[in-house]
């Protein structure tokens, strides 16, 4: 038994086995999801017309606000493309997303993982970034045929390259095992970072796309006795509340995804070689 633990932890020999057997556990999560589904169904079915009307009004207002923002975004995006051409950089790309639904939460209190209802059948892959409506949530770490496991950014084994949105200072945001806080690693004492700064994904490491909100800096502690700043940030995504998540496909994986939606999003990383400096906007 001990040998098994050690082999499982320090080598990846057991990974194929785990992937093969992953299909066995999906029914369990589907069963435990039934009460939630019944509840959703109840909410959808037994609702008064008045409530629906109010909700409809609210949604229309919200849509209007978003459309106004989108109008600005279009011109900004065009401007961005022109500027990038001047810089000889690669063009804006569109990310494609696939909506997924949460069907389970890892029962292990030390790990922050959730199980979603998309798998290889829907084109999900290992390392795929996952968003919710408010920010980056995490990445897919295990894929089954119809379900996969997502590691949240707050897990203590997770880290993500970020930059401060205000001035572009780069850092690594590590999960702390606490759902409401990330800590920034190795931030030197004279770095310009303050409470309230928005941290967005920097795209370094080529796992997460650039420009998605990750966290907001809550607190910066300058302790003269320590070599680095202690920076605590709060994740933007609602890690423990969101039920509908978005799986992000970068442009290159888009072709094979059925039912995916396209979403105007951040630019890819700037490439220095001139061959990739594609002209023309989106």
């Amino acid at each position, binding site marked *: 038994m*001990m040998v098994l*633990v050690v082999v*499982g932890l320090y080598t990846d020999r057991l990974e194929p086995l*785990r992937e093969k057997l992953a299909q066995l556990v999906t029914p*369990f999560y589907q069963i435990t999801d039934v009460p939630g589904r019944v509840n959703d169904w109840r909410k959808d079915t037994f609702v008064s017309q008045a409530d629906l009307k109010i909700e409809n009004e609210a949604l229309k207002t919200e849509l209007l606000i978003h459309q106004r923002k989108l109008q600005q975004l279009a011109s900004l995006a065009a401007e961005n493309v022109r500027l990038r051409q001047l810089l000889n950089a690669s063009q804006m790309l569109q990310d494609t997303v696939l909506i997924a639904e949460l069907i389970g939460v890892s029962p292990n209190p030390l790990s922050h993982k959730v199980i979603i209802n998309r798998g290889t059948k829907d084109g999900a892959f290992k390392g795929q970034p996952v968003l919710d409506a408010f920010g980056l949530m995490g990445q897919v770490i295990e894929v089954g045929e119809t379900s996969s496991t997502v590691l949240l950014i707050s897990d203590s084994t997770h880290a993500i390259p970020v930059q401060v949105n205000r001035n572009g200072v780069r850092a690594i945001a590590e999960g702390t*095992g606490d759902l409401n806080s990330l800590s920034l690693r190795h931030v030197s004492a004279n770095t310009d970072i303050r409470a309230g700064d928005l941290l967005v994904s920097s795209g370094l490491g080529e796992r997460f796309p650039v420009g998605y909100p990750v966290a907001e800096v809550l607190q910066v502690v300058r302790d003269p006795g320590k070599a680095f700043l202690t920076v605590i940030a709060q994740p933007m995504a609602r890690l423990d509340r969101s039920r509908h998540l978005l799986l992000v496909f970068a442009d290159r994986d888009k072709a094979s995804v059925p039912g995916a939606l396209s979403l105007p999003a951040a630019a890819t990383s700037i490439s220095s070689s001139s061959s990739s400096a594609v002209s023309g906007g989106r």
Partner: protein
Amino acid sequence: MLSPQLNLYVIIAFSFLVALVLSVYPLPMDMRWWRPEFVLLVAIYWIFFMPLTVSFILLCILGLFQDLLEGVPFGQHSLGLVIVAYICILSYQRVRNFSIWRQSGWIFVLVGVAQLTDNWVQGMAGRPLSGIQFLYPALSSALLWPVCHWWLNNMTHRYHH
């Protein structure tokens, strides 16, 4: 009707299935520490009251399945199950005569031992533990023991004889 022996196996399999489902039932993130160790409780019950029906090999496989289910390193739960099962085998003759709350106290110790090995493996996997939280499942399991005992007793008496 099934034969009584077969019937018993069906009951055991059913109880473990229910325990497995309960062990992944979604809880709010902050409440997860309070989830009792359902599978372990059921295993302890069967070892205490039917020590010849559940084999160690079976417990190992059950533990491995639970590891798979919960997405933890292989061997974590089977290690705990086997160690606790061994202690149970050594002690069942005494524990059967305890009052139900005294049994609960003993359950607290047993689940606590399993939690130690669980968190030892978790620590090796890079998720170190801080604080006394790891004993919460032991406490909730101990509190749940009378219910679990009553349920399984009831089921055995109704369908086995």
